[in-house]
């Protein structure tokens, strides 16, 4: 029986810039920031009210699974905004939208009423997009 989700990864193109976006703009906290030698880094962050969920800011880089060609393709796809990575929720979408916009977060969809509540879409510094939702009570 699967019990819960502990890690998920978001492909980013620059970990330092992603750190600034997720920590300083979105307000996530750093869970683990471990140097892995030769400039490599294992960096995970958590949403403020979900400290047990580690989101790995996973650098698109050559390794055992990603060859040079895959890195090139992945980089282009991430930049293009191909990947919708996750849905985040908040208590008050208008307030969160106002705050994140003031911090320079780019929204590709302003808060809109949907069947399940309200939703906006924002984009991270790499190009991944996310739903930000306020669900009906």
């Amino acid at each position: 029986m699967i019990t819960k989700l502990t890690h998920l990864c978001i492909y980013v193109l620059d970990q330092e810039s992603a750190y600034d976006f997720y920590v300083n703009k979105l307000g996530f906290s750093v869970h683990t920031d471990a140097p892995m030698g030769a400039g490599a880094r294992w960096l995970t962050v958590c949403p403020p009210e979900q400290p047990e969920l580690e989101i790995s800011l996973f650098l698109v880089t050559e390794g055992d699974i990603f060859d040079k060609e895959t890195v090139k393709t992945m980089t282009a796809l991430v930049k293009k905004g191909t990947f919708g990575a996750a849905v985040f929720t908040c208590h008050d979408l208008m307030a969160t939208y106002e705050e994140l916009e003031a911090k320079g977060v780019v929204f590709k969809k302003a808060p809109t009423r949907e069947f399940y509540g309200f939703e906006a879409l924002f984009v991270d510094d790499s190009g991944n997009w996310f739903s930000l939702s306020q669900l009906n009570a």
Partner: protein
Amino acid sequence: MEQFEKLYLYKRIVQAKLFIDHHYAEKIDLDNISDQACFSKFHFIRLFKSLYGRTPHNYLLKIRIERSRLLLSEGHCVFDVSLMTGFDSPTSFTAAFKKSVGEAPSRFKERQRTRQRNIRSNPFCVVPNCFAETHGWTKSQFLRGEI
């Protein structure tokens, strides 16, 4: 019209929150914030709480404690952290930290230092193997001292 008024209200409360986010290390007078937001103190506290689930004072305290956790993890001493996060004194910082986190700042710092030491000595204890392999980080590299 009602929608515009609501939006205007949101903007003012959000600006007040951002003011706290940016100035938590200073001596913040919450009366001034409510004045800036053009609200009576009571109205301001009520609206702030309805948006963020806590009073401006509790929110300020939360931000200061979160920041202090980060600074302690980075190795700063308790005295410096208390000054860098806007507390009146190391004593008031220690009391607030203990109440919020459940342990003294010095103990927290020590635990973080031990954790970081453990991660440095064996990063594979925190990186799931599937992700490590994706990057090409292998245990044999680690054992050879290449990580």
